[in-house]
């Protein structure tokens, strides 16, 4: 029965990040070392339950580079979502003890409702519709969908240009409804994972590939023949999914987010993942409660 977990990632203090970012980026350990710990925990709350258990259960991914990707060598999970998971665990427990359970996009609401996971940290866009079933802390990061093409492709710059083209998208991702809305005349071709989509674009199975900017940045970095066209054409505020109605826990997580935003740890976390492929300083963090559905 213990094997029902997809992956157990109890991060020991000694573990190292073998992630291949520039050496200037602080490692995940340094982030944890600088992480705040909650002054007190109210008895009878979700936080106390987690502290008694000794580790935080996060619903997430293992195969989302830059966000939540397992490193097969160290078996540590790396990326923005993974780092935030460790920081939140540290805030509650004083140590970065996290267990990541793989969550399919369609089952996240159920996982929270029946208490299988404490939080969802998985490019979980805050929408008013979802907010009827789950509570959202955050947003903790603002992303958006962008269009990628081969270098030699011309005539695709705006979402409207996708009409009449074959557009590649990840199966069950928000890209599909977004493409249908922005370019109803586009033919959508779906694949199960980001590298498969990228390979398909490279091989010419479609003219364009629509994906979350944070996910695409890594793909483009590794594939010199692919470029991102234009700016994000949607706004996807990522939230931390919490059981619907657990206002205390939501407030607690929001306090934590405000603390790390103010102390600059948020920016350092960004630098450690997305910042390894985007030049310049971290963007200003999104205002807590700013996205419709996260009030």
């Amino acid at each position: 029965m213990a094997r029902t977990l997809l992956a157990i990632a109890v991060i020991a203090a000694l573990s190292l990040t073998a992630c291949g970012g520039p050496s200037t980026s602080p490692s995940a350990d340094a982030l944890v070392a600088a992480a705040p710990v909650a002054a007190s925990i109210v008895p009878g709350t979700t936080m106390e339950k987690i502290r008694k258990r000794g580790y935080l259960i996060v619903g997430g991914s293992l195969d989302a580079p830059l966000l939540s990707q397992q490193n097969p060598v160290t078996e540590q999970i790396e990326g923005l979502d993974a780092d935030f998971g460790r920081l939140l665990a540290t805030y509650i427990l004083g140590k970065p003890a996290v267990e990541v359970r793989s969550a399919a996009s369609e089952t996240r609401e159920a996982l929270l409702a029946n208490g299988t996971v404490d939080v969802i940290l998985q490019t979980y866009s805050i929408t008013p519709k979802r907010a009827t079933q789950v509570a959202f802390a955050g947003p903790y990061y603002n992303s958006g969908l962008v269009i990628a093409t081969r270098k030699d492709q011309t005539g695709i710059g705006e979402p409207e240009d996708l009409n009449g083209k074959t557009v590649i998208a990840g199966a069950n991702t928000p890209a599909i409804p977004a493409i249908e809305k922005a370019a109803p005349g586009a033919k959508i071709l779906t694949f199960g994972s980001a590298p498969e989509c990228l390979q398909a674009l490279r091989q010419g199975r479609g003219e364009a590939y629509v994906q979350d900017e944070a996910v695409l940045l890594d793909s483009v970095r590794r594939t010199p023949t692919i470029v991102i066209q234009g700016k994000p054409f949607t706004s996807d505020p990522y939230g931390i999914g919490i059981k619907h109605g657990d206002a205390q826990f939501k407030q607690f997580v929001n306090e934590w987010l405000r603390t790390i935003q103010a102390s600059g740890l948020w920016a350092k976390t960004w630098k450690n993942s997305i910042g390894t492929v985007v030049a310049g300083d971290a963007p200003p963090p999104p205002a807590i409660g700013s996205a419709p559905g996260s009030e």
Partner: protein
Amino acid sequence: MEILIEHLGDFGDGLLLTVELAALALVGALVIGVLVAALRVSPVPVLRAAGTAYVQILQNVPLLVWLVLAVFALPDIGVLADLFTTSAVVLALYQGAYMAEAVRSGINAVPVGQGEAARALGLTFSQSLLNVVLPQALRTVVQPLGTLAIMTIMNTAMAAAVGVVELTATANRVNLAEAQPIWIFVSAGLLYMALSVVVGLVTGATERKAAILR
């Protein structure tokens, strides 16, 4: 229920693609199966080994792995076909290995006397195989071929995992859009059952016609 009527067109398209995939794969598999079975009973050891290797390699790797490899690896060695064609070819090659086994067992089921008689008449290996043994062998394997046809229909679902929007992928897509899983999945299941029933009826009728009374 309205969901189904609303998406009738989607289900029709998905079902059509499933039937096309299965039909192409079966025809391809039959050709490959007969060829490989012929290799496996040939007098040349290298050809026999090649036939055996084909069956072993194809049968012992999951279909999903073959599909992923073909869809993403073949373009890098200079072969780029659309997803449907790639899936149909992979399915044909995969089911071909199973077909070869069925045909070979059919060949082995033909009474030895038939082969001996053919040889006694002075027919060569290929003549005895083509004109005497194979026609009888294929008649005895109608039932296994029906089973293989049903297996092929079920395996076309795997194409959903590499982006072909056949029946299973259609069901999943409609469900994601409408969130009415029971009706949607039950209908998809019923459609698969209907396909198998058709195959069963065809197999039964063919078997009665093809049966050799001994």
